[in-house]
């Protein structure tokens, strides 16, 4: 795990509802280097948010981690108690969420909420904390931060609030920032600004970033490496250009085909993926995607495929990559190039 900032091993998390155990994250492993931007894609219910909430140990009743390890800077966070996790959250790992309109407490000023977080983690007095907060506000591009410091959240626009939340998350200089759909609730123009800001933050502060999204456009714009999740599992993991130009998983393929590509001249039809995600209360025995996959084989319904190493740094969970499988040109291309 040497230079890995974050190392997640065989993480499992479930929600224990009155109808039974919903296995939201099933054996997820990945790692993140210092200063890296990792994209986490998948449709809603794929387990991407739960994975990150588990990393922060923020799952609340009835959800909890059922297995695995989360090593951050070499230390496993899973066995830590609530008190120790409070030292980690906001200080070493921070998180910003989807809806900036509701993510700030409406009854306190933005400034006082920032000062509260700063003083929680850093030995500063009120005045120093205020200075630090104003500095952060200006860093994330909020104009006249001294005045804005005293404003209430409802006096901020949506984009400004997300900037303020990012400022708050970064105020203690964490090693990792997890952004859970940070742009979904924003206007398109604001989205681009916020993404740009996240990129800048990485440049200037060297923060590693996990960007959760269901929007492939966001991934293409800002990530270096991508993990595609489905049914609580990692389906494919690869550098960003491989995902877009050389996907090796039917699910990734389906995702790409369901997004319009404005650069293509041909009036190709968008192909939505038929069916709906698997029921994680009774997860299928085989590949979670087998029920919707157009290449599904009998083995897919019976046995869970392993993660095949397609090449260095590119893995995909699909039986079609097995030696014994029939050759499907979309997925298995070795030797067929050119």
């Amino acid at each position, binding site marked *: 795990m040497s230079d890995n900032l974050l190392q997640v091993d065989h993480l499992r998390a479930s929600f224990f509802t009155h109808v039974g155990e919903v296995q939201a994250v099933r054996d997820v492993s990945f790692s993140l280097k210092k200063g890296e931007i990792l994209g986490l894609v998948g449709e809603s219910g794929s387990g991407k948010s739960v994975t990150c909430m588990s990393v*922060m140990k*923020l799952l609340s009743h009835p959800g909890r981690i059922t297995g695995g390890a989360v090593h951050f800077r070499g230390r496993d966070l899973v066995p830590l108690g609530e008190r120790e996790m409070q030292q980690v959250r906001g200080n070493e790992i921070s998180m910003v969420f989807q809806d900036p309109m*509701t993510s700030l407490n409406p009854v306190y000023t933005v400034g006082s909420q920032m000062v509260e977080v700063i003083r929680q983690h850093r030995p500063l007095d009120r005045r120093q904390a205020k200075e630090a907060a104003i500095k952060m506000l200006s860093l994330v591009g909020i104009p006249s931060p001294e005045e804005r410091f005293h404003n209430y959240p409802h006096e901020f626009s949506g984009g400004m609030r997300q900037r303020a939340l990012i400022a708050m998350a970064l105020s203690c200089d964490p090693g990792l920032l997890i952004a859970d759909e940070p742009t979904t609730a924003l206007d398109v123009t604001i989205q681009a600004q916020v993404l740009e800001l996240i990129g800048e933050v990485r440049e200037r502060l060297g923060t590693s970033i996990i960007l959760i999204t269901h929007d492939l456009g966001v991934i293409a714009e800002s990530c270096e490496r991508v993990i595609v999740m489905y049914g609580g599992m990692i389906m494919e993991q690869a550098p960003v250009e491989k995902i877009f130009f050389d996907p090796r998983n039917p699910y990734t393929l389906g995702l790409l085909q369901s997004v319009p590509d404005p650069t293509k001249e041909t009036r190709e039809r968008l192909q939505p993926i038929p069916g709906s995600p698997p029921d994680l209360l009774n997860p299928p025995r085989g590949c979670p995607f087998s029920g919707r996959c157009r290449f599904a084989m009998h083995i897919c319904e019976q046995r869970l495929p392993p993660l095949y190493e397609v090449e260095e740094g590119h893995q995909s969970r699909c039986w079609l990559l097995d030696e014994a499988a029939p050759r499907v040109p979309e997925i298995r291309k070795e030797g067929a190039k050119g």
Partner: protein
Amino acid sequence: MLRYILKRLLSMLLTLFLLATAVFFLLRFIPGSPFTRERTLSPEIEALLREKYNMDAPLWQQYLDYMGDLLHLDLGTSIQMLGVRVNDMIRNAFPVSAALGFWAILLVIVIGIPLGVLAALKRGRWPDYLISFLTTLGIAVPSFVIGSFILYVFGERLGWLPPGGLYGWRSYIGPVLALGGFSMAFVTRLTRSSMLDVTSMDYIRTARANGLPRGRIVFRHALKNALIPVVTYLGSTFAAIITGSFVVEKIFAVPGMGKYFVESINNRDYTVIMGTTLFFAALYVVMVFLVDVAYALIDPRIKLQD
């Protein structure tokens, strides 16, 4: 802010003016003489009384006179207890009722809100069930039933509490519990559900993600937001306590406004009914205004304009 207060004061005065007018004319339309009692009065005495109470003047003259007196905060004289001025009655009785009301509201706030928070924090465990049972009891059982039972069980049977009247702190327990019981139960429930609503809010998740300690999240971030609907309800609490005093003071024989009001109703003592009604209304209107100001202080999204 100042503009808002002025505007509210004006509308309060308008409300009271309209109420006074309505009450005045309504009571004048009741058939029969207000002096009808068990014994019929001799015509001479009735004529004297009519003159004393200004009842021979044309209606509009009576109305103007009454309104003029109101401007001087003079609520007139009782027509059943000769010579007793309504102002004096209120002056004597209100402090008694106000003391009961004060303790009842304190009970609602100081016990009701913490119980609600406790129930929310212990959701689904025995303190929650116990509190929920008690609040259901408090909401479903009317104040006069609670009052009568306290009086019977603790006053008559066990002898722990004095059987009535207001002498010493122990005599306050029964009336205050009966008066505040319903509102306390309601506030507890409201606080509980409001706390639970707030706890699932995004900003609470933000606070947790930023590593704030649990106590700080509950008491600084969740509670203040959860109190917003509770504060809104406080206006209704005043109404509940005013109306509750009618029965509770009767049960516990407390010489307060409520008891006199009910007596004046039973005696058809119209000037007293009118005076106390106006007094209650004015009190309530002022209280609601104060609640609105408190509301704006808690929730910065509310601006005292308009």
